[in-house]
């Protein structure tokens, strides 16, 4: 028996561990470090219809137990992702989750239609929550009606299940979660980054060229854990949890509050081998908790 296997809409995962979107590119760099087939899945970098150059630099700034980023969805565009990146990833035995972004609903729909047809894309992750792009992105993620409409539009064209990635920068995340569930979302991924800022010590001006950026890393984990806990009670579709995961214990914590699988973002920069390390350590943790299969941990905070 595989004690770590997890079955989610569209996704048969060997284990519930996957790198989070934007923190792993399209896998090429980490493929030099270890065999990507070890992973449960990969959430690839946000893909937009056209090529995006992203924001000016500096794009990252360190904070206490965290970092801010304002990459701005830089990516080579749908065409290149279809012809170069996804075929590269096809050599590995893993289902890919394609992170889809855009400015208008039509952009999302266009990308979703084509990218969901790629053979190794087994699910979409609708990025309605990127705080680092001017229009689109964040507004979709903060208004339940708009989020639901977008979800429905993408569902209509997607040939694979659609997960919606929620923004933590909202008053009540359960409202958005319920809205996208009703609109047909197959799952939820959460959380994207918290909007933050850092200023230069000498000048007092924002360090990031984009002024604000998205906060990630261990500092946001308590917020992410709370939100997964809340959303688990509000919806019945699966949740892929993330936000500050940097250790095997963190994975257990996210599953305890209700995540069915867990994504690792920023921690890949700190320890590029973090995903395979967690996967290797998980069985020992299950033993210590006296648990036969990892799914037994899911939602135990609520029991």
């Amino acid at each position: 028996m595989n004690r770590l296997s997890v079955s989610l809409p569209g996704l048969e995962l060997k284990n519930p561990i996957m790198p989070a979107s934007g923190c792993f590119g399209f896998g090429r760099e980490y493929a030099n470090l270890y065999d990507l087939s070890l992973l449960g899945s990969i959430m690839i970098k946000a893909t937009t219809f056209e090529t995006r150059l992203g924001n000016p630099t500096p794009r990252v700034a360190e904070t206490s137990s965290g970092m801010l980023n304002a990459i701005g969805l830089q990516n080579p565009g749908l065409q290149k992702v279809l012809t170069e990146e996804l075929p590269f990833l096809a050599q590995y035995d893993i289902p890919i989750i394609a992170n889809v972004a855009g400015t208008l609903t039509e952009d999302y729909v266009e990308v979703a239609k084509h990218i969901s047809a790629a053979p190794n894309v087994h699910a979409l992750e609708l990025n309605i929550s990127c705080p680092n792009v001017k229009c689109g992105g964040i507004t979709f993620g903060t208004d339940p009606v708009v989020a639901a409409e977008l979800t429905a539009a993408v569902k209509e064209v997607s040939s694979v299940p659609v997960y919606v990635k929620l923004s933590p920068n909202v008053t009540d995340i359960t409202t958005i979660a319920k809205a996208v569930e009703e609109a047909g979302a197959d799952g939820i991924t959460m959380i994207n980054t918290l909007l933050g800022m850092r200023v230069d010590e000498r000048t007092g001006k924002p360090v990031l060229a984009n002024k604000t950026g998205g906060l990630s890393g261990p500092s946001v984990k308590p917020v992410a854990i709370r939100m997964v806990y809340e959303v688990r009670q509000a919806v019945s579709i699966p949740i892929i949890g993330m936000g500050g995961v940097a250790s095997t214990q963190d994975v257990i914590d996210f599953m305890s509050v209700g995540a069915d699988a867990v994504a690792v973002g920023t921690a890949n920069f700190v320890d590029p081998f973090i995903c395979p390390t967690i996967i290797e350590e998980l069985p020992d943790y299950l033993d210590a908790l006296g648990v036969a299969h990892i799914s037994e941990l899911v939602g135990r905070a609520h029991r």
Partner: protein
Amino acid sequence: MIRQERMQIVRHKQLAENIFELTCIGQLVSEMKEPGQFVHVRVSDSYEPLLRRPISIASIDRETLEFTMIYRADGRGTTLLSRKQVGEELDVLGPLGHGFPLHHDEKGSTVLLVGGGIGVPPLYELSKRLNENGIQTIHVLGFLTESVVFYEEKFRALGETIVCTIDGSRGTKGFVTDAIEVLPANFQTYYACGPTPMLRALQHQMPTIPGFLSFEERMGCGIGACFACVCKTESLPDKEYVKICSDGPVFPAGVISL
């Protein structure tokens, strides 16, 4: 190949005001090939500070499996680094990026190496290797002031070395470009590492001489995955941007928009 290793610190000493020289031993050194590559160092096992720090490789000894970095203890991370003791372990990821070309110039030719502040260190390994290849090196090393000058004698042992300080407290007074101005123009190529304004000035000063510049940018992953360290390019037809960490940090002069 890129490796992550808990290397052992074998030497650690202060060279100048806030400037430290740190030598580590480990298998990772066997992967170090090009001068100008860098390592990504984790200064603490805690999450605070969280990110690794990019530091250039200043010299490589593949026989003893030792390599040396020289860094300025300035912010939080490098200050913590400066407190590490000999015998402690250091989490090093590397070697990263692409360094200076070693075969651009022919044996017997003369080249100019220009370093500014903590841009000086990678030029040391470069100079050693060029000299090994029979290439003469002239070094122009710019510093803020006398108290932060380091490695002057080491460079002098390899070739003509002009030190300049902005306040004139050591060597000639002024910027590296002032020193180059009065240099006989008998070099074929220049190699430079230092703050961006210095690189810009050099490129402007020597528009017709081939040059190789090493750049700095704030980094996340250090390996090309996060798009933190991109720069717009001037001249690469197929690429509108490059990543400093994986495409660089060294680029031919003219490639990066300055």
